């Protein structure tokens, strides 16, 4: 399967012109979408279906700056990416202490029967973590240009790659804890942060 950058005829870089990407997405969709191959033979229809699916997945991975970083890392490491995987990420070492404290807060609030005050404490924790969750994303995306420069100059990207991976793991862990907080509050369904999304 061709990689997503190739599908869109783009270099393997993190800076992407969103509008141009969308235009190209629409063009490719007009070319491959099954709607326009209804009268074709079965083989052509199957081909259109696969092509169209590839275009859709590629667009989804490339349109979002953070998803782009995740995809690129997977590509660099030569592994299959799977979006939305729910394997619980392990807590990064420097967060361990803090996250243990959050879990304790949850347990205490539960022990208190999740009354008004306890629930409010959990909501406060959640707000704080959601801010850090968003901040991690910003920090990651902010270094996209740096990556592209290293690509252009042929510099060593290993350190930055490692840094991206760590930040992504941290962010993923925040997500898990935010979900735990929502679960404890019984608000997982109404959670105002899009669930399992970048």
């Amino acid at each position, binding site marked *: 399967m061709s990689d997503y950058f190739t599908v869109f005829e783009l270099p393997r870089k993190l800076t992407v012109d969103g509008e141009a990407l969308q235009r190209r997405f*629409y063009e490719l*969709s*007009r070319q491959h*979408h*099954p*709607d*326009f191959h*209804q*009268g074709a033979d079965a083989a052509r229809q199957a081909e259109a*279906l*696969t092509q*169209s*699916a*590839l275009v*859709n*997945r590629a*667009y*989804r991975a490339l349109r979002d700056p953070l998803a782009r970083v995740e995809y690129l890392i997977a590509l660099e490491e030569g592994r*299959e990416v*799977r*979006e*939305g*995987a*729910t*394997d619980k990420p392990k807590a990064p070492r420097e967060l361990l202490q803090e996250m243990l404290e959050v879990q304790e807060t949850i347990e205490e609030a539960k022990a208190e029967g999740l009354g008004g005050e306890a629930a409010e404490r959990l909501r406060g924790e959640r707000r704080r973590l959601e801010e850090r969750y968003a901040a991690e994303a910003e920090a990651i995306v902010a270094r996209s240009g740096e990556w592209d420069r290293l690509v252009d100059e042929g510099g060593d990207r290993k350190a930055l790659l490692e840094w991206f991976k760590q930040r992504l793991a941290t962010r993923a862990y925040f997500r898990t804890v935010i979900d735990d907080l929502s679960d404890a509050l019984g608000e997982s*369904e*109404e959670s*105002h*942060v*899009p*669930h*399992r*999304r970048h």
Partner: protein
Amino acid sequence: MSRIVGIDLGTTNSLVAHVEGGIPRVIPDAEGRALLPSIVAWTPDGVVVGEAARRQLARNAARTVYSVKRLMGRGYEDVKDELPRLPFHVVPQAEVVSIRIGDREVTPPEVSAYVLRVLKQRAEAHFGEPVEQAVITVPAYFNDAQRQATKDAGRIAGLEVLRIVNEPTAASLAYGLQKLAEGIIAVYDLGGGTFDISILRVKDGVFEVLATNGNTHLGGDDFDQAMVDWLLADIETRHRVDFSTDPEALQEIRLGAEAAKCRLSFDERTVLTIPFERFTYHRDIGRAELEALVGPLVASTLGPCRRALADASLRPDQVDQVVLVGGSTRMPLVRRRVEELFERTPHSRINPDEVVALGAAVQAQILAGGITDMLLLDVTPLSLGIETLGGIVSVLIPRNTTIPTLAKEYFTTSVDGQTTVDLHVLQGERELARDNRSLARFDLAGVDPMPAGMPKVEVTFLIDANGILQAQARELRTGKAASIEVKPTYGLTETQVEQMVEDSFRYAEADVNARLLIETQTEADTVVNHVERALRQAGPMATAAERAAIDRALAELRVARAGTSRDAIRECTIALNQATAPLADRMMEAAIKDAVTSKRADQLLENS
């Protein structure tokens, strides 16, 4: 390519439409009616659909099926709570619920097929040629099993379903064709039984769905039910009668409630009158009372709206237009709540009852190659995942992913020499498998025996443009295609559908035969009546031989009439006609003579 029609198979009403001269139009029935009530009744004279079936609701409650869309693709667990309210008998089967009509059991797709067949005939009468292909709409939030059930219904009705389209998306196509939509559009679709919210970006002829959400068990039916419960209590208080277990009375109340609800969209107050056998119930109802009853239900549509906005990464104020679809959006309360949420006045410039069918016709035209500048990019409403160790779901395709889409996943064996791998595929947003909707269990078979962990089976999960899952498997070490046996958790198997397609021909024939028999019997009765009257009036005119022949023929026809052989009845009817011919001739002559005689008398009188 042959003609493709667009069909809105609704909970309450269904419609068929097509594009003519670039404009989508609903095809009406012979009486000019666009809406076909989605009601099917089994009567002694055969199966009736639509208005005729609606008239059976309160007379023949146990054999009249309505709102069957709520049962499509459902298992017993999904619907058991609402079964006590249904006047027809639903057979509690885990995989596919079915409805018992006399000694027959019909599944929801078969009931829907009756409705589809009438729409198909309507279109065929309009075009004067067979119609065999259709686009059928479904609620955007329908899961895989519900979509498949809709496709099955089409097949049973003799229609090749070229595409399943989401209702709100179809509506946006109808608006888009008329250049009534551009920018970020929210389509709020509240129908008879289902609720959808879809957020789209419409730009340069591209209709890109950004997010969708909804509830496939929320609609006008639930509003009616809230009123029925309230009316039952009121009737019990005022008349000391409990109608809660009387199916016919319940249907009368339901029909009355539905009509009052509709009137209250336009009037502030209305009087509900229901004539029962022993008394007539009158009740003055104000709009505020109705709103108090349905308020919580309407409020429950707002959560899905917020989630759809969040998934589209949009704030309410970034929405350019809010379009209302579905009959229930005529309620002022619904309009108010939508307006409050989106901070924008919603509109329904195209008839909210027809817009989905019109959009389906547009999609049909796109598939036929008649429209090439419009492109629809829809999404899958629910996350697709597989069950992993500990009953946790691992998501392969997140909700709101543009379709078609695919995901590959790799599986191996855990025991030496293992040749099959079982997979459990689910749809839903919850973390635990048991909280999600089980789609199917896949048996990967034909894996070569190898030490545990050695085989690598690649499974491709593909969601097509209909939002329906297809799966393929391949063992990577041997390159051998592993066979997949899909056991759908809910829904019909391929064999069952084929059987139903066959049955439908057989029953269609049986239904036609039943009607023809009734017609022949009626004709025989008419002839017998005529002969009896003739004998009373002019018996003495017949000779003894003629009289004997007539009596014999009459007796033979009466015997045949009691049976079910149409040919025998027809033969005896003809024989009776022949036996009475000489007498009839003589009577005719006498009548003419009589007329001439009386005429002479008239003339004599005139001339006197």
